[in-house]
């Protein structure tokens, strides 16, 4: 039974991997990666790594793939044709990959590890369960655990710094502050609790002076409109 599951999962993982490499559209590559990861987590389950299989599905097939899909849809379909000399390079790299596989196979078969031909160590209950992983992480591997959290923090800050908008486009800081752009003027008592219960009546609003456009960039410029739309901060002048 386990052999059947192994072959199904292994073929699924290999098909997914080939799909990632061979499909032209990056979006389909990401979808293929999802299939690959699910098949791989089945292999992890066969190796009795329950916690890792769950983490694989949640972290990879869940979070990381969503990130990829976001970026693919933001950047767009980057289908690039092979350039000049691309075919020769492709053949050379295929040769290199074939040699790499032969070398790995020799390394595996010639390693002299007798246990490779076995089904592994006898099964102990609790092997690879969340309890055992958590205990090992918080006792024996406390320092790598803390370092991993630090690494995640550094990566998050670095990703924000890299993807942030730099000089070149107009940012919010470039536009001179204009109160009427952000604050809707209203009379003194409007919107208070006293007005709500009817204790106070707001005086009739004075006719407001027409706002003048304080945008240094003319609105007809397609760049500015694009920037506003992409930031989601477009503030129509006639919005009240």
């Amino acid at each position, binding site marked *: 039974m386990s052999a059947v599951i192994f072959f199904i999962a292994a073929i699924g993982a290999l098909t997914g991997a080939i799909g990632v490499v061979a499909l032209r559209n990056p979006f389909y590559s990401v979808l293929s*990666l999802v299939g690959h990861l699910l098949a791989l987590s089945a292999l992890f389950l066969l190796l009795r790594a329950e916690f890792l299989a769950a983490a694989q599905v949640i972290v990879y097939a869940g979070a990381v793939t969503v990130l990829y899909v976001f970026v693919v849809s933001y950047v767009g379909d980057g289908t690039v044709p092979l350039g000049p000399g691309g075919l020769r390079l492709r053949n050379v790299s295929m040769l290199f990959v074939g040699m790499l596989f032969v070398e790995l196979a020799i390394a595996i078969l010639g390693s002299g590890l007798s246990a490779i031909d076995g089904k592994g160590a006898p099964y102990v209950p609790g092997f690879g369960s969340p309890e055992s992983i958590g205990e090992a992480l918080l006792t024996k591997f406390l320092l790598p655990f803390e370092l991993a959290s630090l690494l995640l923090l550094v990566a998050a800050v670095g990703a924000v*710094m890299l993807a942030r908008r730099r000089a070149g486009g107009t940012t919010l800081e470039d536009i001179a502050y204009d109160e009427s752009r952000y604050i809707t003027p209203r009379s003194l008592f409007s919107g208070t609790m006293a007005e709500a219960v009817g204790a106070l009546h707001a005086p009739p609003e004075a006719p407001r002076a027409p706002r003048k456009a304080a945008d240094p960039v003319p609105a007809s410029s397609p760049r500015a409109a694009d920037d506003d739309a992409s930031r989601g901060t477009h503030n129509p002048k006639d919005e009240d």
Partner: protein
Amino acid sequence: MDIGWYLVVSALIFCIGAGGVLTRRNPLVILLCLELMLNAANLALIAFSRMHGNADGQIFALIVMVVAACEVAVGLGLIVAIFRRKLPIDVDELKELQG
């Protein structure tokens, strides 16, 4: 199944990923292929962990997953930065850094 089969599958996935890194030109797909290679390493680590009956290899694989997540975040940030500067999303065109 014998542990050797898992190692063979791991080697195959690693080679497919390496071939993708070498042949594809879209940096997004190159990142995906790096994921494939890291996953192949994870599979080998877990197979060896099962072989020895020692869960330390699984901790190792978990740390590799953390590093892969960091790599994805920074790599996708780089791609977004490239896109915002209106540079081509093509590793063959982005060759100013080569020696």
